């Protein structure tokens, strides 16, 4: 496992971003934040995160669209969609998106994200 993997937290809710930063930094991640889809795309180009924690509901365009844009780029980070809703509330949209998976917000832990990262590496060796 690479030390301090870079994670981009995309969420328009300030409180959640703050908690996610505290929690993920404690779990050994380097955390960058973005509050909208556009900001997420721009930031991802600069900091080249290994993982993007992506809220589905964003003020400009939704998480699925952001995921498509990120996946179309060069870095192709591991994308984890998240929401206060459940996966079933999005029908087949999650499985058909380029995201590696879905994590309900209240189940967010550093360990869960490390798991996604490991699975992503195994699937796509650098």
């Amino acid at each position: 496992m690479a030390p301090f993997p870079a994670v981009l937290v995309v969420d328009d809710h300030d409180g959640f971003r703050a908690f996610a930063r505290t929690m993920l930094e404690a779990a050994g991640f380097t955390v960058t934040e973005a509050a909208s889809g556009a900001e997420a795309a721009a930031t991802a180009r600069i900091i080249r995160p290994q993982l993007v924690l992506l809220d589905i509901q964003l003020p400009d365009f939704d998480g699925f669209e952001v995921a498509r844009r990120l996946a179309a780029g060069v870095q192709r980070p591991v994308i984890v969609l998240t929401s206060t809703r459940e996966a079933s509330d999005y029908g087949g949209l999650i499985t058909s998106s380029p995201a590696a998976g879905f994590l309900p917000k209240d189940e967010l832990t550093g360990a869960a994200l490390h798991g996604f990262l490991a699975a992503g590496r195994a699937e796509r060796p650098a």
Partner: protein
Amino acid sequence: MSRRRRAALIVAALAALAAVTGQIVVTYVPGPPQPLIGTISQSLVGLSFLAAGIAAWLRWPASRLGLLFTIAGYLWLLPNLGHLPYALPFTIGNLVASVYGAALAHLALAWPTGRLRSRFEVGVVAAEYAWTIGQSFVSMFFWNPHTNCGPGCPANLLMIDGSRSAENVLGVISIPVGLALTVTVLALIVRHWQTAQGWTRRAMVPLLWIAPAICALSAVQTVAENTSLRLFAGATAGNILYGYLPLILLAGPALFVASTLLARTARGAVGTAIVDLEPGAPPGQLRDALARALGDSTLQLAFRQPDGPGYADTTGRPVDPARPEPGRIVTPLPGPAGAAPAEAVLVHEEGLEHEPQLIRLTAAAAGLALEHARLQAEVQAQLEQVRASRARIVEAGDEARRRIERDLHDGAQQRLVTLSLALGMARSQVAGSDPGLAALLEGATKEAREAIAELRELARGIHPAVLTETGLAGAVQALVERSPVLTTVGAVPAGRYPAPIEATAYFVVCEALANVAKHAPGATAQVAIRQPAGRIVVEITDDGPGGARPGAGSGLRGLADRVASVGGTLRVESAVGSGTRLQAEIPCP
């Protein structure tokens, strides 16, 4: 009692008196014997003309037809004076013996309005009167009654010379003149019919049958009276000529009866036409139906133009009610109270004016039909408005629920999640140092998570996010997966539809599955959504006990209302013992 009505009653009384007197005279006064058939046809023809006259007078108070019928009746009865055994009445009776023929010609030429149509026709009628009296007058100079009926006859006061030869000479002139007048009258009648339009043409038809018969009778009598053969000299010939044949004249009063029946039939036809008119039929159809009923192909139904002072008929032709074309009459239709000038008018052939009852009925019926159509259009428009507002209300309700779900998701749910995460972090931080506090925080985290789950369920019930996010197919799939009922889903159209349609179809499936879970636990269900042309059909069947009644629970009724709000229909088939089948058909462009 109107003046006309009183006059008619006086005429009626006089007619009865005349008839009774005539009978007494013919029966009891000594004189030349009168054969029974003669008496019968004399009374029958005369009285029937008088009766027709009175009836016509009452029916068409403004027309001269009643007077003409009455005059014909009197002129027919007047020659009965000749049966009196005195010289003066005898002479007068014989003098006016055939003047009724002129009255008949007058009546026929004035039919059906009571007015003669031209100066020429006035001349023809005048000639008829002049000829029938003049011819009798002149021939009586030479007629010695004693050669016919013997010495019992009274004297002919006008006789100058009893020589038969002079009378015969006049007789030879009488045939061509009499026939010429008869043929002229007949030709004029045919021409009246040919040039007539609308109601007048219709009214002319019975006359067209009757006139030739009476003209033929007149011709036969003219020839018989004026040939040297003296056909009427024999008793049998006399009976035929003056007893049986004059019964043909009963066709005159029959003309009145026929025209009454015609008007009555037309009134019935107008009623039937209105009843048979399709609800909401355009005014053009109303006009056609009335034109057929009245037999007036020229009938026009004209409406006041909304953007101008003028009127236009159903074909768009402008109509000026103040100055109708010659020969045409304008009748305003009764409209809503206080509406002047009339919204609509009938323009018809002037002959119809002589049937005021018929025209009044037609106008009233047309007015009613138009009012009915107007009300129907109004109700239709209101219904359309109500439908649209119902759809808007449902849509607004959906939108409100969608917003509430989103607000819950963005607000309370978000905060609870953050709270839950914070609690989790706090617990892991104190896990080693303070087991008591850690257990407390563990319990708080659990509570928060349950609150999140409950809130999610609540939000989903308010409005399923999956429907907004993915459409009908995904929403139905998610619904079925969460439902306690074992359900198979057939093909669901993957496309997106207008939000109210998606929401309605979704709620049908949702309510149906909830009903199965509630009323038929253990049953399995099938969901199929098809999209035939122009609509979406949602069908949910289960193998439960059946027996659901659409009106019984508020659930199914509310669902039916919901489906109706988007113009769809909901059908429930639920015979006891054979499951339940719920089918919603929703129009979808």
